[in-house]
Structures are given as C-alpha cells and as structure tokens.
C-alpha cells in the first residue's frame, strides 16, 4: 500500500484516511482538488460503542424490574423506548464521526467540526500560510494503532487547525509538505 501516492484513489480504515475520494465540501473553490480526507481513527470510536452496550444493558435490567408494576402494554413501551434511546445515541455518534472531517486540498487545509447536534465550525488555512505542524501521539493505543492529533499553526490572523485522532499522522504531514512544495514550485 503506497500511502504517499497522492495521485491514486484509496480508502483505508473504514474510510478514515481517503486519498482523492469522490468528495465535495461546501466552500470548495472551482479547480480545487480534494487530495486527502481524514476522520477519527475507528478505535477512538470504541468508547461510545461500549457506553451504548452498557446503557442498553442497564435500561433492559431496569425495564425488567419496572415492568412488574406495569401492564403488558406499558411494559412494551419501556422496552421500545430503551432501544430507541440507545439507537438515537449510537446514530448521533455515527453522524458526528462521519461528518467531522479534516480535508487537505491542493490549495488549503480545512477542518470541519460538528459538536453535538447544533454546533458547526469550519476552519481553513491556505497552504502557503502554514508555518508549523505538530503531531501529538502519546499512549499505548496511539502507538499501537498509529493515530494521533495534528496541530497546524498558521501565519498571521488565520486560525490554527487541529485534526483529532487521525490515522497515519506522519503520512498526513508528508502529504502537506509535498503539496506545499508543489505549490511553491508552481509559483
């Protein structure tokens, strides 16, 4: 697997590291090519999956004892309600994971964040404005599964960009450097 081949479409780790995907974002300019799209590493999503299993177990046990006080019709409602609550929790987390993306194009880097159900944040910086890139990958899971946080510091008043828990952080930096050099050579 050639991760550095940025001219060939590839998808890795449940579409968390996609090179040249069929992807379009709202603020994409004409002629701007999406080179890389990254999401949180799948292993970082394990917590809400565990939480949902625990939550479902607790609710079903509570329903079992509570249903002794209710008639069958009411008891059915408590079971259905429990499954719907857990389903809503799982679905919300899937949405947040799927739509929280880091995008690297041939012109800029973009970070799209959705927190909860009502907060949206889009941060972007042009490639030539990038000054420093920091990778933070500490801990057993980060080392074993090869993921980490990337902080992209920009010049001037442009906002800094952060990609959280993304796979192959080193490769992402190499791709950004490669694109920055290409852009400088073209100018």
């Amino acid at each position: 697997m050639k991760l550095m081949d940025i001219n060939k479409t590839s998808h890795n780790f449940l579409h968390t590291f996609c090179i040249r995907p069929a992807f379009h974002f709202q603020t994409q300019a004409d002629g701007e090519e999406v080179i890389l799209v990254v999401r949180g590493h799948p292993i970082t999503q394990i917590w809400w999956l565990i939480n949902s299993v625990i939550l479902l177990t607790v609710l079903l046990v509570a329903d079992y004892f509570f249903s002794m006080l209710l008639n069958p019709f009411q008891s059915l409602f408590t079971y259905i309600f429990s499954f719907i609550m857990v389903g809503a929790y799982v679905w919300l987390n899937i949405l947040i994971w799927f739509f929280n993306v880091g995008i690297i194009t041939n012109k800029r880097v973009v970070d799209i964040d959705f927190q909860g159900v009502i907060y949206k944040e889009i941060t972007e910086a042009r490639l030539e404005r990038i000054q420093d890139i920091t990778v933070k990958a500490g801990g057993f899971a980060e080392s074993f599964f090869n993921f980490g946080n990337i902080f992209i510091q920009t010049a001037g008043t442009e906002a800094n960009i952060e990609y959280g828990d993304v796979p192959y952080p080193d490769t992402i930096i190499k791709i950004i450097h490669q694109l920055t050099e290409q852009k400088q050579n073209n100018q």
Partner: protein
Amino acid sequence: MNIPDFFNGPILVIFFFKAFACLFSFMYFVYSFVVYRQVKTMATTVQVKDSGIVKRENLIITITNLQILISILLLIFSILIVFS
C-alpha cells in the same frame, strides 16, 4: 380513590410513568427534528459522492427520516398509554 391511596401503592408509579412517557416521547420528537435539520446542514457542508456501494448521503438522510417517523409513532404510543 382517596388521596392516601394515590400516594401509596402503584397508582402513583403509573401516574408518573404516563407523565414521563408523554414528556420523553415529545422530547425525542423535538430531538429527532433537530437532528434532521442538522443532518441537512451536515450533508450540505460535506458531500460524499457515490462510493460505489450506496450513496451515503441518501442513506443518512433516509435513516434520519426514519428517526422522525419512529418519534411520531412513539408519541402516538405514549398518548395511547395515557388512555390505557
């Protein structure tokens, strides 16, 4: 039913159960609409084209629509419980 009977035994539990069933069903109904609006915004911001298997945007919007339908059914169910 006199007042001491209401506060002792399952009558109070059933009363609160019905009240919370309606309240939480309505809250879930509102929540599902908020999620629907947000998913529309998300799908406009980030558009994943045909991945070769399914159009993921359509799948996500379909599931979100299904969530609204479930919330309506749950609300009707909770109203039926009040009168049961």
